[in-house]
């Protein structure tokens, strides 16, 4: 499987708060890289004796194996000074990086995987929502997504109908905007940054920008880690390992419109590292 098209995209490779001066070995798209922190200058990422481009953003260090055609995306909403920025850490998952993103875009699993937290079996219905590939920014967007949630966030007191917006600005990154319980009218921002190690192994770096001045950071991290560990039990048990881009391989429904658009967008750009094009 060629990874050419994906080489030019940006990927997270570590937390800025947790870089090592002596370097740490890792993988990106199956290639060895070493991530170096610095006491005085900027962090560096090296591969094959070559310095790779780097960007420091959203609490993470980002790099690319190729020549990025555009700057790393931004999340303007996250700049609000009242927000609590949360580096959740890393969860290693034995799955395709693309399957990890697709699962993040899915709400229909909430009642069964995140039972009585993000969903309840008594309220499994997914109502119609809007999905589009926005050509001017080359991103996948899902809007007007609504779902009943028993405990939508650490800051939510009880069950509420939450509104979501999903955005895919890079092949292995997704940003979720959701109803913010303490601040009606604002959105909580939860992002999933995925570092593709190999086609069936990834490091997932969740990151959040929330309006929550009550919960201790540790509780916010524990809440997100609980959710992602529940997702991991699914992601490591899907067959085939790689995300099928052949529509005949799986059976989507109306609730999967975001995933359908994501797969179409991946195919259009030849973002196929971690994908399976034809049935095996």
């Amino acid at each position, binding site marked *: 499987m060629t990874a050419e098209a994906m080489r030019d995209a940006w990927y997270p490779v570590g937390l800025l708060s947790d870089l090592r001066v002596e370097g740490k070995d890792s993988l990106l798209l199956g290639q060895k890289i070493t991530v170096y922190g610095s006491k005085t200058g900027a962090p560096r990422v090296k591969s094959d004796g070559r310095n790779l481009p780097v960007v420091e953003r959203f609490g993470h260090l980002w790099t690319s194996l190729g020549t990025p055609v555009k700057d790393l995306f931004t999340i303007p909403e996250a700049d609000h000074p009242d927000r609590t920025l949360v580096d959740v850490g890393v969860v290693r998952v034995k799955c395709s990086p693309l399957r990890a993103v697709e699962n993040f875009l899915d709400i*229909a*699993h909430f*009642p*069964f*995987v995140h039972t009585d937290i993000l969903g309840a*079996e008594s309220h*499994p*219905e*997914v109502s119609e929502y809007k999905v589009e590939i926005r050509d001017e920014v080359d991103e996948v967007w899902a809007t007007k997504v609504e779902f009943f949630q028993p405990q939508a966030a650490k800051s939510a007191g009880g069950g509420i109908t939450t509104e979501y917006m999903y955005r895919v600005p890079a092949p292995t990154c997704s940003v979720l905007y959701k109803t913010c319980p303490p601040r009606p009218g604002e959105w909580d921002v939860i992002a999933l940054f995925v570092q593709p190690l190999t086609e069936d192994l990834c490091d997932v770096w969740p990151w959040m920008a929330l309006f929550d001045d009550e919960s201790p950071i540790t509780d916010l991290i524990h809440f997100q880690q609980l959710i992602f560990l529940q997702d991991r*039990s*699914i992601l490591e*048990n*899907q*067959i*085939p390992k790689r995300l*099928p881009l052949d529509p005949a*391989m*799986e*059976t*989507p*429904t*109306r*609730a999967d419109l975001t995933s359908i658009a994501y797969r179409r967008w991946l195919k259009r750009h030849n973002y196929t590292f971690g994908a399976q094009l034809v049935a095996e």
Partner: protein
Amino acid sequence: MDAETDARWVPVAVSADILDGTVAPARLPRRPIAVWRSASGNIYANGDRCPHRGMRLSHGFVRGETLSCIYHGWRFGTDGACQKIPAHPAVAPPKTINCGALPAMEGNGVIWAAAQTPPDKPADFAGYEALRSLVIAATPDAITHASDGEPIVGATKMRLDGHNAILLMNGLGPDEVFVVVLIEADLSVPDRLSVSAAVERLRRAAETAGNAA
């Protein structure tokens, strides 16, 4: 598809290991399957993959006479047909959505499954019942050889710790065999324990012989 090998009964689990209302993973020689027992006690088998997003159905849950996928709750009947898609409660699932029900039967305390419907019933071993199962990392020949066993139709007969035993073998891969141990039904509990320990010794002997060769 290989009709000659697919249309035959394969031992995939011990009946006592799959309780009412539970599902477990098992293997046919070339594919993973989900084996489940309904609330009323009937045994069923199907492909271990939800047609929706490929999740293993052996991680799912059984309610009444149905098996549901743990990912999105898609519910399947005993014929493998999808009965319910919770995200769309008002929509009747198309008949084409099916998780692939497989033939499954029980006898001698053994659960048998097949990739295609066999022409006859599984072999019957009168007076014997399943004691336990285990996976041995060796070839069926190495297991028979290590036990001084005598091949009979569909199985290997042997003495284990002085008791009659029959081994049913399901070759999972080149060096991996799923084994069900049958013993005489009237064997006492202490004797059952000693046969079980003897099977572990047999496993080690067969695996060591394989490594030496």
